[in-house]
């Protein structure tokens, strides 16, 4: 029961913080109203959570944990995610959850390091592939759109922005939410369908109640990018995360979007990429799973003494 509550807390937190990934650009650019964006998010997150089970299965197989250890690891993950959101630290919920589960798994002696290896490899490959894909998408779309009359190009761009937002929303359910729900589903505390529905509702509630400020910040922050750059970054991230979802790997949409933005930035001018920001993200990329691992390892070790 406690593990399920912690998973739902994480779902709520994903809703409050990650809504901006899917529709931040669309809301910021005026393509969608906030209310409409939230409705679309709710629909596609639930669709993603109900139709994709691969990530749930992978994360659930990371470690065989008893009720106590599972609850500890999910509560520590929830605490780290909520604390980071509150402090506005750019962390990935996947990394917090995986780090915690492995921490508890090592204490229990059931951690599956082979799966961890694949996941870490996915974390390295996914932003890089998103970056390369963004470069391809940007080049192709820019060429195609430049052949269209202005009014048709404008409609097409708006539609593409909406489409990329929908893909990301679907991934939020299929990958991000699935990562939070995987451990409780594989432990048998919740049925996969029930977990997907409950998780989606909690995520939706988080989005409705707390995401407004984040969506606005991301929207305004990314809008100075031209419409194609925004679309290319978002679509490349959406396609990358979707591909990794199909092979059951929990990867971060946020990092893939950052990879996509960097890709477009490199294509336009390498100097436009803020190296200091990249360093900060890489640091967070290393610190988050290590911190989650250590926190859970120590807490689980103390409680099982």
């Amino acid at each position, binding site marked *: 029961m406690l593990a399920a509550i912690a998973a739902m807390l994480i779902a709520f937190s994903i809703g409050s913080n990650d809504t901006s990934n899917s529709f931040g650009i669309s809301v910021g*650019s005026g*393509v969608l109203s906030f209310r409409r964006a939230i409705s679309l998010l709710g629909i596609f997150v639930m669709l993603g959570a109900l139709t994709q089970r691969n990530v749930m299965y992978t994360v659930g197989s990371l470690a065989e944990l008893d009720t106590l250890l599972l609850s500890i690891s999910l509560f520590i993950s929830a605490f780290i995610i909520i604390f980071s959101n509150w402090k506005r630290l750019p962390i990935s919920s996947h990394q917090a959850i995986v780090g915690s589960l492995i921490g508890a798994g090592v204490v229990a002696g059931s951690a599956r390091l082979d799966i961890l290896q694949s996941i870490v490899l996915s974390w390295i490959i996914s932003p890089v592939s998103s970056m390369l894909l963004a470069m391809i998408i940007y080049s192709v779309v*820019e060429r195609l759109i430049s052949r269209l*009359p*202005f009014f048709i190009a*404008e*409609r097409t761009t708006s*539609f593409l922005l909406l489409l990329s937002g929908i893909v990301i929303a679907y991934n939020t359910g299929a990958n991000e939410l699935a990562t939070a729900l995987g451990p409780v589903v594989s432990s048998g505390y919740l049925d996969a369908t029930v977990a997907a529905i409950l998780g989606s509702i909690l995520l939706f509630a988080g989005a409705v109640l707390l995401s407004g400020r984040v969506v606005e910040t991301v929207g305004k922050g990314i809008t100075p990018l031209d*419409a194609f750059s925004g679309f290319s970054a978002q679509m490349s991230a959406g396609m990358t995360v979707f591909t990794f979802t199909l092979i059951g790997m929990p990867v971060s949409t946020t990092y893939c979007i950052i990879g996509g933005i960097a890709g477009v930035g490199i294509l336009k001018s390498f100097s436009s990429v803020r190296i200091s920001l990249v360093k900060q993200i890489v640091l967070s990329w290393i610190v988050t799973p290590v911190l989650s691992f250590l926190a859970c390892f120590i807490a689980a070790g103390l409680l099982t003494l």
Partner: protein
Amino acid sequence: MRWLKRFIAGGKEKEVIELFKEHINSVKLSCEIFTKAIESGDKGLLTEVCELEKTGDAIRRDIALKLYEGAFLPVMRGTLYKLAETIDEILDTLENTAVDYARLTSELDGDVRELCVKVAILNTKMSVNLMEAFEALGKEADLSDKTIKIRTREREVDAIKREIYKKLVKKEVRSFWEGKILSNFIDGLVNVSDIIEDAADLIQILNVSLR
């Protein structure tokens, strides 16, 4: 999902496009009336130019409202509003010039009148070209042939302007105000083509804003 259909069809955008067409059409009508008024010397026609200016103001406000409500991507809303303001400026200039024409105390000399009619006709043709350029935003990717026509005609107007001034400096005026009103009228008439060219430039900027 009615909003989705409307979104894909671009409901708000279509409304703005229609308003722009109406706005440019007001410019065309105003230029035509102005030409007729100078040709015939019927100053009574000019009240219609003032009416069209009021219509233009209302259209500009409607465009601003629709853009504020979310028509078009934000990156291009500024240029679209600037275009509406520029079209409005053409109508304002035509109105001010009409008032100056109505206040002229003496009739225009035959050759100056002829040159003024030429400018008015060129202004009308440029307004037609402006409409063509705007309509091409929905049909063609390259507008350069449309905007080149406008630039060429603007140069013709500049040449006629120099001819008019050559003739005007030889003309004797009875009072300061007679000379000032005449000068304002000529300046206003030739200035219309400059503003139409500015509007064409904005259309060209819009066209490349998504490239």
